Structures are given as C-alpha cells and as structure tokens.
C-alpha cells in the first residue's frame, strides 16, 4: 500500500473529525440566550455576580476565536465533553461510558448476524438468479429495506412478547431480580436480547442481501468467470473460488457506509425495547434538551462511523491492489 494512499485516507478522516468538532462548537453557541445563561439554566436566584462568575469560570470573557475555540478543541480531544444539564455534576463522558456497552453488544451482534445471513442469502439468490429463493428473498429484502427498524421491533414485541409471552417486553435485565449465579444473570440477559437482536438483524439483512446479490450477478458476467466455465470447472467451484471473493469486495465499503444508517436505527430500536444504550440516552437527552449530552452522542457516533470508514478503506486497500494509488 503506497504512502500517499494511506496519507490521503488519514488526512480525509482527520478533516472530517475536525469538521464534526467545529459543528459542535458552532451549535452550542447558536443556542438562544447567552452561553452562561444556558449553563445556569434552572439555577435559582441568579444574580449578576453569579453570571459574571460563570463567565469567568467557563472562559466566556475570552474572544470566541481563537481562545474559546482552541480551548474547546483541546477539551474535546482530551475527552472532556462538559457536564450533563440533567444529571447534575456528571460529566458527559461519564454518562456516555455508562450507556455505550449495551449499544455495542446489541449492534455488534446484530451487524454480525445480518452480515452473515445477508451475504449468504444475497450470494445464493444472485447465483440462482430467477429461482424461488431469489424471487422470495429479493421481494422480502426490498420490503425489509422499506420498513423502519422500530416498526419491525413493535411488531415483534407484539407477537412474541405480548402475544406468545416467549420473551420479556422491555429492558436489558429483569427489574429487581436477584440472581443465584452469573449464568442465571446471563440467561436473563439473553432472553431480553433476543427480540432487539432479531429486529436489528432483520432490519439490516435486506440491505446486505440486495448489495451482495447485485455484486455477484455482476461478477458472474465477468470474463474470468466465462474463462473458468470454458475450462470446465464445476459451478460450485467457480462460485466459491472465482466469483465470491471478488463479489465480496464492494460489500466491505458498503458495510462501513451503512453504519451511518445503522446508527439511526440503533436509536429507535432501543426506544422500542427500552434497551439502556446510547439510543435511549439520546431520546432522554432530546426530551430534556440536554444539549451537552446530545453533542456528546453526535461526536461519539460520528467519529465512530468515520473511523469505521477509514478502517474499511484500509482493508479494501489490502484486499484490492487496484485502489492503492
């Protein structure tokens, strides 16, 4: 991989992150009312002296640019995202840290399930184009693609939790439950995880199947596949050794690009199931107008997506020598 390819990828990721931080900086100052009033919101008996002290304390007497901006960038880079308006005295990073793991578990597993199933379904239906699995799978994929995640979640919740009573309806663990050992706790967690996980998996599987299908269809019309056929190789071997590895390439960057949409889905699925992750945190912050937390969520999710895209670019560079220029 050439140095300039690496440098360009890193440069553009860095530029994007810088813009994200800039947006956060500008947005906070765009709020109506002066910043010190925003910070002191809800505090009783605010006197001019208190206001002046707040201005001094938060560096609001310094010029906006460069002083305040530099301080803001410095703080952001060192992980200081300010304090939550609602959870008084708690730092935004602290609040985010409590809520990040449920989301990572749910969406990490969901992505994994969707990628495996979606790619397999897409590859098979593209290979057997026009067959029964292709027709049904393609229609289903398109419908799933048009369905908002949360709608799917509500339907699953209604059928499997309320109707059949197979799974609990909300949360990550049963409220007030006492567990004899770690396994009972894990089983309870698993029972709560099934429906949200199925929602995420089903919500995503359609997109991956559609892309993999068109990718494999395109690959199967390439000259080297015709050559392989001409050499008398068996169909199964052509698919596994010639078509699949090449057809998988575009899906690498697609998974990363899709992450942006997955994030939107994450927020809504968590609300449906009351899953205590970043999604429910976002809505709590939204309802309470907890802007520092909202900005923290925006920063965390955007930077994660940018880094995932960077990683995908690097992987792509390793897998496909043609792009390394």
């Amino acid at each position, binding site marked *: 991989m050439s140095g300039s390819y690496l440098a360009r990828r890193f440069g*553009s990721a860095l*530029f*994007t992150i810088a*813009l*994200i931080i800039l*947006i956060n900086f500008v*947005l906070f100052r*765009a*709020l*109506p009312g002066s910043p010190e009033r925003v910070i002191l919101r809800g505090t009783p008996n605010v006197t001019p002296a208190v206001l002046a002290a707040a201005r001094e304390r938060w560096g609001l007497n310094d010029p906006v640019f460069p002083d305040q901006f530099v301080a803001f960038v410095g703080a952001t880079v060192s992980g200081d995202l300010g304090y939550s308006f609602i959870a008084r005295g708690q730092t935004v990073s602290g609040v985010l840290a409590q809520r990040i793991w449920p989301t990572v578990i749910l969406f990490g597993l969901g992505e994994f399930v969707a990628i495996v199933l979606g790619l397999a379904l897409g590859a098979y239906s593209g290979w057997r184009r026009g067959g029964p699995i292709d027709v049904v799978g393609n229609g289903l994929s*398109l*419908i799933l*693609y*048009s*369905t*908002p995640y*949360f*709608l799917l979640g*509500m*339907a699953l*919740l*209604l059928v499997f*939790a*309320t*109707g059949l009573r197979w799974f609990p*309806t*909300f949360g990550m663990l049963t409220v007030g439950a006492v567990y004899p050992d770690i396994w009972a706790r894990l089983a309870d967690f698993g029972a709560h995880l099934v429906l949200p996980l199925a929602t995420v998996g089903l919500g995503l599987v359609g997109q991956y199947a559609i892309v993999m299908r068109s990718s494999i269809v395109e690959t199967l019309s390439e000259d080297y596949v015709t050559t392989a056929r001409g050499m008398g190789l068996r169909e199964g071997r052509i698919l596994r050794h010639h078509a699949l590895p090449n057809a998988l390439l575009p899906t690498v960057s697609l998974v990363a*690009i899709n*992450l*942006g*949409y997955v*994030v*939107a889905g994450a*927020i*809504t699925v968590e*609300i*449906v199931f009351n899953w205590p992750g970043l999604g429910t945190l*976002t*809505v709590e912050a*939204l*309802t309470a*107008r907890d*802007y520092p937390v*909202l*900005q923290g*969520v*925006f920063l965390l*999710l*955007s930077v994660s*997506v*940018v880094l995932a*895209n960077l990683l995908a670019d690097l992987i792509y560079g390793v897998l496909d020598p043609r792009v390394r220029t």
Partner: protein
Amino acid sequence: MTAAGASWSPPVPVRRRAGRMDLLVRLVRRPEGAFGVLILTVFGLLAIAPELFVGPLQTAVTAPGTRLSPPSAAFPLGTDELRRDMLNLTVHGARVSMAIGLLATLVTVLIGATVGIVSGFVGGRTDAILMRITDFFLVIPTFVLALILTPIIRDLVGSASTEVLGIRMTLIVIVIVIGITSWSSTARIIRSQTLSLKERAFVDRARVIGAGSGHIMRRHILPNVINLIVANSVLVFAGAVLTETTLSFVGLGDPFQPSWGQLLEAARSVGAPGLGAWWYFLPPGVCIVLVVFAFTLVGGALDDLLNPKRRGRA
C-alpha cells in the same frame, strides 16, 4: 452513444413534453413501475383531500369512539387512547407525511442540484471545497446531526404555533433539517453528469457567442440534468419520508398535525405493543412501508430508464 444518446441531448421544447409522456408510459409498462405508480396515486389522492374520505381531523374533543377499542363496524381500524378513529388519523397522516416528504425533497434536491451543477461546472478550487463538504455529509451519520439540529433550530425560531402554508413551524423546521442533512448524494450524482456535459460542443458554442457561466448552467446544463434530478428526487422522497417518520418517532413530531411517524410515537408511548393494540400502529406502519416501497420501486425503474450510466444494464 447512438439511439440512447439521441434522446438524452436537449430536444426542442415541443418534443420534450412528448418525451415526458413517453417516459411515464415506459415506466408503467414495467410491472414494478406500474405497482409503484398505483400505490402513489392512491396515497396522493388521500393526501390531497383527506376530508373527502374521512371528514375533518378528529381531536380529543370531537373524538366519537371509546378508548383503544379494536376494529369494529363503526371504526374499521379501531380507536386510539383519545377515542379517535384510527382510519381518520391515518388518512390525515397521509397528508402530513406526504407534504413534509415533498417539501423536504424539494429543499434537498434544490441544494443538491445547485451544489452539483456549480461544483461540476466551475471546477477548480470551488469544486474541491464543495466536494469536501459533500463528502463530509456523506460519511457522517446525518440522522444524528438532524436530531440535534432540530431542537436547536426550533429554539432559535421560537414560536412553534405559527403556520406557513398551513403547516406548523415545528414541521417546517423538520423540512429544513432534512434538506440540510440529505443533499449530498444528489450533489454527487449531478456533479458527475455536469462534468461530462460541460465538455460537449453545445456548451462551447454557448460560450463562444458570449454566454456567461450562470446563463450556461441555467439554460444549458440544468435542462440536461433535469431527468436525472427527477429520478433522484423519487429516491430522495423515500428517504425523506423515512427520516421524517424516524424524527417524529423519537419525539420531534407535532401532535397537532400528526404524521404517520407521530402516530407510531403515540402508539409506542401508550404502550400499544404491550397492550396488544395492534390496530394502533399497524395502519400508519403499513402506509409508511407501502409508500417507501413504492417510491423505491419507481425510483429504481426511473434510474434504469434515465440514468445514462445504467442504461442497457437493467
């Protein structure tokens, strides 16, 4: 570029209209195009005149039914927790969802097409800067940006109860936010088409007779990318409806002008799935899926018919 290229170059105005009708016919000839157009016509009618079908929008005061009752002869889709008829709400929701989708699409495509044409035609530094910004919006999770922009812009605008074109300010803010956050892919598509158009002879001819850049972009480039803009708008509309639904679902909608997403939010906050009240979220849910599905089908079909890069690949 032979037969296909001919229909792409600027025809005389009289023939252009014939071309549009021809396009609609070709679209409807495809099964998925016909299905999509049919669904969109039905929802379009509902959105234009909901009163004609179900009377005025019911409020908590005028609600005729009983609380959360399942579908019956009097209320074919059941009632909500405020005793309102779900059929009434869903049909009126069509107007709100479709109107916001349409306006948001207009804003999105206006920004995207302007950026795309200017970027592609002017080139150089302008192009580099505009494309950097476009790439930024392509890569970040724009929905999360929309989530924080909406309340901030709403606080800035202030009075939520003022109406523009009969649409409440809260929803106008959503239109603007969707526009700001989702124009990037349109800009990319229009730019690449502009890049190839500006090398054509008719652009040189216009320049030789003294036309300025603004004139060329408006009178020569724009008419030639309009087909692409139309095809893209259909897909943008599908995305806009989904984004509006999701924003409403997380509590940023307007209960006084309920869209389908707002109805779903209400259903969730009452706990409809837990109460087994499937009639509360199924009607708006099915409508959303149908509309997005139809627009995706039509958008895909139009893309096949109009996009010069995909022509012949189907």
